[in-house]
């Protein structure tokens, strides 16, 4: 049963990655990327790495995404510009 959840999480991870790099709106891409980060933290839990999950939650949700948002806000929002 565990591998089913694992498989679903993996598929979700791949889906978020693909969505994040295909969206044209950069802010939306960054938001989806934060969801990718959260999924990654879940996989760390599945792999019995609580320290990494904590780090990924704090860094991925707190710091990296905000840095991306700041930069996108200060520069351009559409991908083609």
């Amino acid at each position, binding site marked *: 049963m565990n591998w089913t959840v694992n498989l679903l999480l993996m598929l979700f991870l791949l889906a978020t990655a693909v969505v994040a790099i295909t969206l044209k709106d950069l802010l939306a891409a960054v938001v989806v990327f934060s969801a990718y980060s959260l999924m990654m933290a879940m996989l760390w839990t599945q792999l019995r790495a609580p320290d990494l999950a*904590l780090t990924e939650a*704090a860094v991925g949700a*707190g710091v990296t995404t*905000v840095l991306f948002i*700041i930069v996108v*806000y*200060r520069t351009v929002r559409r991908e083609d510009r």
Partner: protein
Amino acid sequence: MKRLLVLVALAVIGVTLLYGIGKMPPMDSRASPDKTHVVPRYLGHGEEEAGAKNIITGVILNYRGYDTMGEVSVIFSALCAVIAILDREKKGRSRSGVDASRVRTSLIVTTVVRFSLPVVMLFAVYTMLHGEPSPGGGFQGGAIVGASIILFTIVFGLAVSTKRIPPGARVPMESVNMLGFLSMGFIGLAFGVQFLTYILPGLGVAAAETVRKLMLDVIELGIGIGGGIIFISIVFSMIREDRYELQQDVP
């Protein structure tokens, strides 16, 4: 054309990697080389040798402490790089683009942030100092501190934040993580043992244990405070827009 070329290259890389993982030991096996060569000692004796119930903390701070010193140097060099590229903000005078907006922050959001900030800080300190028996540790706590201060800055504006945490106070704190490691290392050298050794000779067994706990706590706090302040500084120098954009963009 370029896309086709890239796809071919990706296919080659993918096939190489898949070949490699096909030949690797199966994922969950207990007999693969990485679980039989070095690790049994870490798992079996890590608690008394490294002084931490959380073996990962033991590996990070004790067995591979030198790597962690490199890690804090990486984040310090990232700070230096960002400041060398973007320059530091001015105390109380720098504004972010959001501050200059006519739309003010919602009262509900400011109230919630103001009341939850102390809770988050408390939790961050708990995480920093609780890395020994449970998951957590300096860097994680630092990241939480950084994230909460970033939230505060976005909600209340850069001018308020830089008044509360001025650059002059942050500069010495940014090096705290490296200085913590180096000072603990030099203490070891002064006692005649090797760099980053935490069991000092010449003390009794109980005293040595206490000293080791103290030294590990100092390092954890150093990593946490330094890391948090470094994140804050990076965000501050990225968020400020007082050079050119304010004049031309925001009405």
